[in-house]
């Protein structure tokens, strides 16, 4: 591991769901650039949970023949001994869960860093029984509702339709985890069409809705196996790792056993929220 001492003004602590990740780089300009992307999720951790040293490299269309190949669009997440290695055309990251230290070699793009942080959280959450899910999350009446589905199903739309006083945790990527014998949804900085980070708060998870557009608003129960399929289909994970994949499967089964997972068919108007509010636990 190439631990490099960095001046403190080139550090950035990002806390999502109570997991603090410290990023260290020698570029104040990059720190300033990524600060906006993670607004609301920055702080100063006395003891960060994970530390990453970032080495910024110029964008090289032909790669450098080593770890970064700009032609490679697919994400590869592999376990290499005790370490995880994450590779895409614009970055290579390596992380040791035991030492909680890693390094990232990447082009100076906030988008690339956003991807690394997302993938890191898929790995961390899987081990904690949780998941990052392609879903929007909205808090109403002290409870969180999660809305998932294929691209275009209405994840952003339904969060836009949420009544005043609703709190948007994310319109793109939901952070879900069992805590204190209950599942909680946490806000994330990962944004979709809204283009802004979610609110940094948590709420007990009241339910997950699999979205479908229709002419009327209705809620239908899903059989348990369909619920598990829906959770699996929308959980973000990349690792080609049997143990981790099985863990993700078991996490989906556990969540479906405890959290109502239903289909929400909705017409795109705000009245759908009357139906959702009536479904409060």
């Amino acid at each position: 591991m190439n631990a490099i001492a960095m001046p403190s003004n080139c550090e950035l602590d990002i806390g999502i769901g109570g997991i603090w990740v410290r990023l260290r780089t020698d570029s104040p300009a990059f720190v300033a650039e990524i600060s906006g992307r993670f607004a609301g999720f920055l702080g100063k951790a006395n003891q960060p949970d994970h530390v990453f040293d970032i080495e910024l490299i110029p964008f090289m269309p032909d790669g450098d023949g080593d770890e970064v190949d700009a032609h490679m669009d697919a994400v590869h997440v592999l376990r290499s001994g005790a370490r995880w290695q994450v590779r895409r055309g614009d970055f290579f990251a390596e992380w040791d869960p035991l030492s909680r230290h890693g390094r990232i070699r990447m082009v100076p793009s906030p988008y690339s860093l956003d991807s690394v942080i997302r993938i890191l959280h898929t790995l961390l959450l899987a081990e904690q029984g949780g998941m990052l899910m392609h879903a929007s999350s909205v808090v109403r009446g002290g409870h969180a509702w999660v809305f998932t589905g294929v691209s275009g199903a209405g994840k952003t739309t339904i969060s836009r339709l949420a009544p005043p006083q609703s709190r948007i945790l994310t319109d793109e990527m939901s952070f879900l985890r069992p805590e204190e014998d209950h599942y909680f949804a946490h806000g994330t900085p990962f944004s979709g069409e809204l283009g802004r980070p979610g609110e940094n708060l948590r709420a007990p998870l009241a339910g997950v809705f699999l979205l479908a557009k229709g002419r009327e608003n209705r809620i239908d129960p899903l059989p348990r196996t369909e619920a598990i399929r829906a959770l699996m289909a929308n959980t973000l994970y990349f690792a080609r790792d049997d143990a981790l994949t099985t863990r993700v499967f078991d996490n989906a089964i556990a969540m479906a056993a405890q959290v109502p997972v239903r289909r929400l068919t909705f017409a795109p108007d705000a009245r759908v929220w009357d139906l959702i509010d009536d479904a409060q636990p």
Partner: protein
Amino acid sequence: MTDSVYILRSPNVAARRIGDELMIMSAHDSSLFSLNETAAILWDAADGMTPLAEIVRRLILPVFDIEPAIALEDARSLALGLAERGILQLGDSPLVPRGDPV
């Protein structure tokens, strides 16, 4: 396929019983399958050592009202389908497990 067919649960496959259903996930590509009752019987009995015909005779015929020859043919067809999806391994001689399902 010869008369002697042996079936073995594939490694790197996770099987979880959800209520009355058996869900199978391939750890390789995360594909999910729900096995019906007959397929679940084959899965449970697929130890690599018991001939398929014996599995049918002992576990399927007592449960389903079906002609033995038809039951065996259906079981062969089902086993082949499960093998094509990487859930089972087939052989014409006993199969030795190379690792437990995950």
